[in-house]
């Protein structure tokens, strides 16, 4: 009997997981469908850009600076062995623009803004604000979800770009100012080696994908949270865990498609 129960339990979990993916896909579709209102009343998106984008600036800038400084230090140590310290600028810039910028910014965004979105919407549901909105004949997906979704999609590439820019400055501080790598070769090699389409554009595409996925997970978890204290806290945790894993897995997939040894 226990074997059958175990198998039944596994099957039940799988069916539930597939079911949730379906519900999330429907949620995504509805969000896109009801997005028109957000663009007609753009101030709704601007308000959310402030709370998810602008309020994430500090964490993105501080984290970017330190990641760039570590890259500068580690990069110098490695490149020195091959006598190519002058390529430090290239290494820092490519590392940030292609990978660390989009990935780290998305991870930070998920834990700073994503968790806040989930908790906010979950609590709105628990305090009947969403039911109240429905009873007022206002579609909560159009009014609450869509502006937040587009704010996330818009702010993510900007935050990732800022992360990379500040990170490059951090690498410059450590590599050029502190260690004494030649400033001219640091910048000129970086300019020569970083390709706009190949590196920067691909980085922007990555951060757009991450922004879409993270924001969608955060909004869906909030909207789907059981309206209790436990439900909201569980949903917030799931937002951070699921979106972090999704970012790292998608990063591998996107990298494999974009840079497969070409």
């Amino acid at each position, binding site marked *: 009997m226990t074997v059958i129960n175990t198998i039944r339990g596994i099957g039940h979990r799988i069916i539930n997981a597939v079911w949730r993916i379906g519900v999330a896909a429907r949620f995504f579709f509805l969000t896109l469908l009801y997005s028109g209102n957000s663009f007609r009343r753009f101030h709704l998106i601007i308000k959310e850009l402030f709370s998810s984008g602008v309020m994430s600036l500090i964490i993105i800038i501080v984290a970017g600076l330190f990641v760039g400084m570590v890259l500068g230090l580690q990069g110098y140590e490695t490149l020195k062995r091959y006598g190519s310290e002058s390529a430090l600028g290239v290494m820092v810039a490519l590392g940030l623009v292609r990978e660390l910028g989009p990935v780290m910014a998305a991870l930070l965004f998920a834990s700073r803004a994503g968790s806040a979105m989930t908790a906010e919407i979950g609590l709105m549901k628990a305090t009947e604000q969403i039911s*109240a909105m429905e*009873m007022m004949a206002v579609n909560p997906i159009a009014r609450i979800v869509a502006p937040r979704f587009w704010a996330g999609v818009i702010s993510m590439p900007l935050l990732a770009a800022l992360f990379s820019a500040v990170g490059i400055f951090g690498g410059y501080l450590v590599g050029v100012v502190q260690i004494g790598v030649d400033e001219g070769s640091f910048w000129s090699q970086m300019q020569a080696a970083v390709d706009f389409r190949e590196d920067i554009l691909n980085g922007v595409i990555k951060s757009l994908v991450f922004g879409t996925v993270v924001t969608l997970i955060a909004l869906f978890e909030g909207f789907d949270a059981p309206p209790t204290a436990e439900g909201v806290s569980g949903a917030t945790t799931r937002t951070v865990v699921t979106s972090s894993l999704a970012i790292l897995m998608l990063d591998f997939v996107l990298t494999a498609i974009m840079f497969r040894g070409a």
Partner: protein
Amino acid sequence: MSPPALVEIRDLNFTYDKRPVLQGINMTFPRGKLVAIMGLSGCGKTTLLRHIGGALKPNRGYVRMDGQVMHELSPAGLYAMRRKMGMLFQFGALFTDMSVYDNVAFQMREHTDLPEDIIRSLVVMKLNAVGLRGAQNMMPSELSGGMARRVALARTVALDPMLIMYDEPFAGLDPISLSVIGDLIRRLNDALGATSIIVTHDIQESLKIVDYVYFMANGVIVAEGTPDELRASDTDFVRQFMHGEMDGPVPFHYPGADYRLDLNLRA
């Protein structure tokens, strides 16, 4: 002949998880009247309100509002119908990220193209009607429970609905706020020419203001009448409910195993 009732409920049945929640409910809410639905917690009152709002579909029977059957409406038709309704939720359900002013203005901004100065005048009038014109710049977190309920009431009537529903409007209020809210419900109903449905278990306060009462227990109507008829009623259930007696048709004990067996005592 009197005009047809605003809301009619006929033979409404609803089952949740194989458990019958509503069984054969028949109710009539005439225009301009204030009707209370009373009963114990969990007797299906809120479920009934959700049917009237079109949030749930019945298994049998129907709710007809203003000539249309709620569960047969398309999503667009349902939203159009809901614009004629207002609902006050148990704890107000104010939008916590908006000020009192923005909460009351919310529906006007969502559903109308009125210029901001007219919206301002309307909001100030609605807030004045509930005595909170001076609190328009406060946030919901700064309000007391009674004030939040009054702001929610102003928001509920923002677009002058035909039907106003109240879900436990008296829950958790101090005696002064309680009578203020009761008085407001009656006055707003009469001033707007609306029809109101109050779901409550506060007997004393609601009998003062309502025109008619339905008593529910376990998903069926067990008694109905005007406040005077109910005060004079000698039905067991009504008496137990009206006087808050511990035991009667509604038992004090939740059904369980034999007490002696639970205590491991053998006879």
